[in-house]
């Protein structure tokens, strides 16, 4: 429930819309009662030979159609507002907290799952709250109408109504909440087996293990379906139970009509009550399914709230403006992602303005951690880092990132045009500047050769272009940022050796106003460096060239 509260805060701004939607829903439900009640009473009146006017019946019919139309329109409009709000809220939360760190942990899958979770939050209003509120508000109306029959009948119908509309959905929500993690675990297991099966196709073929792997994947599928069957069966049971309860209600109303068990009502009144009860109970019979959904939404809300919570060790914002210079000095820094395992031990390093420096070392030696520290994604446990003489802990985070740009294998290429990929939302950059950056990254000729030039679509993660071209577009984006310090974190990963060499030699042509820190596990020989550092087991050694 605490997770739902944070969502409620997002929704607060839209409460008028949401509330109007609920009111219209309720009015629309009332109009059905009026319509069916009128149908019953008119039929009864004619049959017993009384005079019957049909004005109200016609009115109820018209009202029903109109109210239903506007109810849908308003609730959907509200849903769309909320949908956009939730996405923006999630985006801002992530951008403000954990996002920067995500660049250093590969977690694409986790993010996709989170996006699916955000998506499932959409159904909270339209498919859970609206029907539940409608049921809550129609309960007193139904009881009032039943009271005109007899007290006993009102009591029975009220009881059955509450069981179907509130108790069963709550049970269902608890059940699906309890099963949720297991269902998700088996599905995740199936997904990872599928990835193993497809990604490891070469290994499996060569070692003749295709059948074994297929069997394992199908076993994971079966485990997932077993859980799904359990859920489906429970759902079928609950739905049958809901049907049984509502039918029981109809039988009660019918007995009231006929004077069996319940005190005999006047014929016309009895039929009116029967029609209203039938309609009301029909409307709530699907609520237990909404309960099932509710359990899923609760889990999704939990995961989203967890992901957007601020992680430990995030540096403070800082207040100082950007310093004039951009010499970087790291002094006696010790740092670890967890307390007990320092990755960097008492590291000192200097990157003068315009200097070309490389930092090499095996994977896991703490190279990327150093990049995270320089970008103010994390703050060092001990020691200090200065930029142009100012401690970066005091400088505003965005100012640090204006001075220090980052390019790595994890730099994302968006499923968009080259232009949008270069701009990333900025609107103060001319085409000339973009071409100049592309020229520097030595990709301008290729972009010019494309039929749509800057407006060419590059596909999901740059799938329409080659790896080397993608890396160069990412470089052009970094060059466009005017940041005087470039940190290139393993820019060659995923490129074949020749493309990597060609890419690295582009760096030699960059003008000398920028300083470059190249972080890599090996040198290719084409780099022109002023200085070289090696890192081993968290300690830095300087190697002059």
């Amino acid at each position: 429930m605490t997770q739902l509260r944070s969502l409620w805060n997002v929704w607060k701004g839209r409460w008028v819309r949401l509330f109007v939607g609920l009111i219209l829903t309720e009015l629309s439900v009332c109009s059905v009662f009026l319509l069916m009640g009128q149908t019953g009473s008119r039929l009864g009146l004619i049959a017993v030979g009384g005079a019957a006017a049909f004005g109200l019946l016609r009115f109820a019919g018209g009202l029903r159609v109109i109210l239903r139309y506007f109810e849908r329109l308003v609730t959907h409009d509200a849903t769309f507002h909320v949908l956009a709000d939730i996405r923006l809220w999630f985006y801002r939360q992530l951008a403000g907290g954990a996002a920067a760190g995500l660049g250093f942990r590969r977690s694409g899958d986790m993010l996709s799952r989170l996006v699916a979770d955000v998506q499932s939050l959409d159904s909270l209003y339209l498919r859970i709250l609206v029907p539940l509120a409608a049921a809550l508000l129609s309960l007193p109306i139904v009881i009032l109408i039943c009271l005109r029959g007899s007290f006993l009948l009102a009591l029975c119908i009220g009881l059955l109504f509450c069981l179907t509309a509130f108790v069963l959905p709550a049970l269902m929500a608890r059940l699906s909440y309890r099963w949720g993690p297991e269902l998700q675990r088996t599905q995740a297991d199936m997904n990872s087996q599928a990835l193993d099966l497809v990604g490891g196709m070469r290994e499996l073929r060569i070692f003749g293990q295709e059948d074994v792997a297929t069997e394992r994947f199908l076993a994971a599928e079966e485990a997932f379906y077993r859980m799904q069957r359990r859920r489906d069966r429970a759902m079928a049971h609950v739905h049958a139970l809901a049907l049984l309860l509502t039918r029981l209600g109809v039988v009660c109303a019918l007995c009231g009509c006929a004077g069996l068990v319940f005190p005999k009502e006047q014929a016309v009144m009895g039929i009116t009550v029967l029609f209203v009860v039938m309609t009301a109970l029909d409307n709530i019979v699907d609520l237990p399914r909404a309960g099932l959904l509710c359990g899923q939404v609760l889990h999704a809300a939990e995961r989203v709230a967890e992901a957007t919570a601020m992680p430990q060790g995030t540096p403070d914002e800082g207040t100082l403006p950007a310093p004039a210079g951009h010499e970087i000095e790291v002094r006696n820094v010790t740092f670890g992602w967890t307390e007990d395992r320092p990755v960097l031990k008492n590291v000192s390093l200097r990157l003068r303005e315009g200097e070309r420096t490389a930092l090499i070392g095996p994977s896991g030696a703490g190279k990327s951690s150093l990049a995270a520290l320089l970008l103010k994604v994390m703050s060092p446990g001990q020691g200090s880092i200065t930029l142009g003489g100012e401690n970066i802990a005091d400088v505003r985070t965005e100012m640090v990132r204006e001075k220090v740009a980052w390019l790595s294998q994890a730099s994302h290429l968006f499923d968009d045009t080259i232009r949008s990929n270069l701009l990333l939302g900025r609107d103060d950059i001319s085409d000339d500047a973009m071409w100049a950056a592309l020229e520097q990254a030595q990709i301008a000729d290729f972009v010019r050769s494309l039929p749509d030039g800057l407006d060419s679509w590059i596909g999901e993660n740059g799938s329409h272009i080659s790896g080397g071209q993608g890396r160069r577009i990412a470089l052009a984006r970094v060059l466009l940022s005017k940041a005087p310090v470039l940190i290139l974190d393993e820019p060659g990963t995923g490129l074949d050796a020749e493309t990597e060499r060609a890419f690295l030699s582009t760096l030699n042509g960059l003008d000398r106003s920028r300083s470059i820190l190249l972080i890599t596990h090996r040198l290719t020989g084409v780099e022109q460096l002023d200085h070289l550092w090696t890192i081993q087991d968290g300690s830095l050694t300087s190697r002059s060239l």
Partner: protein
Amino acid sequence: MENFYSVCFSFVCFACICLRMKADKKMLKSWVRQQNRANRSATLLLALVGMFNVLAGMVLVWNLAIILAEVLAGGQKVGMSHLFLFILASVARIILGYVQELLAAASGEKARKRLRRELLARFFAQGPALLRHQHSASLAAMLTDRVEALEGYFARWLPASSLWVVAQWSVVLVVFWQDHRAGFILGGCCLVLPVFQAVFGIATAIASRRQILALNRLQVRFLDRIRGIATIVLSGNAEKDAQGLGQAADELRRRTMKVLRVAFLTSASTDIAMIVALVWIVIDQRHGLLHAGSVHQMAGILFAVLMVPEAFAPFRALSAAYQDRAQITNSGEAIQKLPALPESMNQVVSGQAVPEHTRHGIALDVRGVSYRWVNDHPLALDDVSFHLEAGDVAVLTGPSGAGKSTLIEMLLGFIRPSQGEILLGGADLQTLHPSDVTRQISWIGQKPVIFAGTLRDNIMFAAPEASEDQLRDALEASSVRDYLPLLPDGLDTRLGEGGFGLSGGQAQRVAIARAFLKNAPLLIMDEPTAHLDPATERDILVSLRRLLKGRTALISTHSSQFHTIGETKRLIIERGKVTVQETLS
């Protein structure tokens, strides 16, 4: 004149594109039809149960009508048999609904399983060459998410769409039989339904399809933004980008609401048809009801009124399942995009030839081999020939894109040469059974795939029947043993997704241990040290040197360190041709 030609040309181009789209659509349609056919028996069974449900509904409403008529006629006694039948029919409906729900779930499961096995068969028929065309993540998503998304289509849409016309019109017919005038009114209102659908539907269907597309695009864009959020945040543009995202969402909402305003008219028309039928029948029947001679006659009229919601229920079920229908097109399109099976892969092989190998390794003879990946593209391999004696260690170099990987995939049997032949131990690769080929070959790639499972599983899968001694030797020779103490649970450490991560060098040693265990006479390596730092590369080379003993090897690499590994042959391949081939002493 030139202008005229260019206009003609562009028209022809446009026509070609249209035809091609139409052909794609046709293929998609036939695929969907094939899916429907495969699921037909389950669909029919579900529709049958649904039909029984409708019949039970008729019994239920008929008895309800009689009870009400008796009450209205002022009779003091209500027939208990009718009340009993009413309750019985109610219970029957509940049971039928229950059965229907379970059957639908089972049918959805069965269909998904069938489709998944179909896809698996297709993947394996294509083999690892498939990974050249499509990313493994998107292929895996096809096996999992794409198939799962079809649950509603098989469980709900298919039965609902095959049932609704029959169910609706059998209700109308029964009402007609009881009371002709009421039957006409109900029938008329039901007939109007498709007309309403056509009037509001066609325009909105096109527009709403576009909206669904736009919504999907927004969803994809959001996912893409979230995945790359670190890049945006570190470039300092997060707030600007958030505003852009907000604008796009707002724009989508305004456009969607414009469409929904009309689209909801379609569903309002269903409401109108039902309410008109209800009100009309009530008003129309007032004289009949007033002058009804018997309880039975009165019951007939009440029956007609009470059946109105039943007549519209099947259509509502259909509308509710409509969104499930869109999924089949999405999944179908993705599956259609899988490359077609190359013809050569379907050839049946006799499997009679047996490759010969000595204790030094196996001979490999490549004769005039050519290959092309895509029809219009240049040859990836152009008349390639070379020969390796048993025990030869050949180092293969050349710029990337020259055809090294193509050659290796061909030697591994993933693709077959369009021309020329490859002899392995004197036997033509084409005539060998694929499993006989892979039995002779071990392979080490750039980055070995580490499967979800323990380290032991990951090594033993190369030779499941290997003994503990053999495993110990392989661990020793590949130097996996050196880092075992660093792992939390030694050989039983869980690796892969959600498990312990191995470094590049450690993973490559696993691949070497696999090759030791498999003990095949031919060893093929594809840039085995491309992702390693020089120190690790040197360590790996020591293990590789041990592995090469007594085997023929072909090593594709960019690293000069391999020239010290004991190479006996040097091959250079450029633009699909072998340009240098020298034997070293």
